[in-house]
């Protein structure tokens, strides 16, 4: 394993070689991992909200599904990836508090899937919804995505 690169909340990073991208504790947020297995370029985004229109005061494009996914793809292309070869895996979008009426997690997952569809990137695996937190680890060498949780153990996407 190369470097472990942390992706924060409302953040995105691109890696290659033996590096591993990690984002901790996705709740209603959605983690999107995009991979080009020929170029071995991997990208990970951690969005908080579905759309830039939900917040008038913050222009951080990494924060919203409708701006972050495009930007992630753009940065991956700069590192030698090709959109045609890209595939995506997503995780998160949970509903953490049963009583909350705003379904942020579902909105986030739907918005990310919509963006992937617009860009023509196939979604090959998803571990979304339910009511628990997930840490997401993405390996540049083979595109493996490991999901870790306190309540439901670990799985590989």
């Amino acid at each position: 394993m190369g470097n472990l690169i942390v992706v924060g909340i409302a953040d995105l990073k691109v890696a290659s070689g033996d590096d591993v991208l990690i984002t901790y504790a996705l709740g209603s947020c959605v983690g999107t991992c995009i991979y080009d297995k020929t170029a071995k370029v991997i990208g990970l985004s951690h969005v908080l909200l579905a759309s830039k229109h939900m917040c008038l005061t913050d222009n951080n494009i990494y924060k919203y599904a409708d701006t972050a996914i495009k930007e992630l793809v753009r940065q991956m292309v700069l590192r030698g990836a090709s959109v045609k070869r890209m595939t995506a895996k997503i995780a998160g979008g949970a509903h953490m508090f049963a009583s909350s009426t705003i379904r942020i997690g579902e909105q986030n997952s739907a918005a990310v899937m919509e963006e992937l569809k617009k860009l023509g990137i196939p979604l090959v695996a998803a571990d979304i919804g339910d009511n628990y937190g997930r840490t997401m680890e993405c390996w540049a060498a083979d595109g493996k995505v490991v999901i870790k949780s306190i309540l439901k153990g670990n799985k590989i996407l």
Partner: protein
Amino acid sequence: MSTSINELSPFQLDVLKEIGNIGAGNAATALAELLSDRVSMSVPELSIADANEVVSLLGGPENPVVAILLTMSEDVKGIIMLVFEEKFLNVVLRTLLGKEIDSLSEMSELDRSVFMEIGNIMSSTYLNAMSQLTGLNISISTPDICVDMAGAIMSYPASLFGMRGDKVLIIKEDFIGQERITSHLVMLPDEDSLDIIFRSLGA
């Protein structure tokens, strides 16, 4: 003109700290009665933080915590969340139900409802203190509980304040009985509500 959490004066911060202090004192008394134990408290520490800072104050994104969420309504609107470190679970379960659990996934419905009740009582005492100081009516919703990684739990308030690009108030308080338990009270009042609180206190 509404006051933003980012622009509070030192005097306004002191007012909030004092409300936190009195509220925490009442909550400690309530907890002592519930646990039939002597419970003292540390001096509360008030911080103003964004999403990433709150998560590190809570021990890092993957730190397991117990969170109780309540919604405030009437004169003051917004959400409050009481966050306890994981070991608080067993202190309470041991005292009230005579049992302990080894992992969070063993938590039963009864265990959860005991916690919601504790959250309810502690946050009510907090808000009663605020209500008495300010003369404002503050109602709280029935509590909701979530036991998971701190980062995942904070995604809910983070997405709410993310919509406004705002920060939250967070009050750290240690309750010291047979064990020392760290708790955090995360408050996200609507901006108008902060004004209403300050106006009622002449701050």
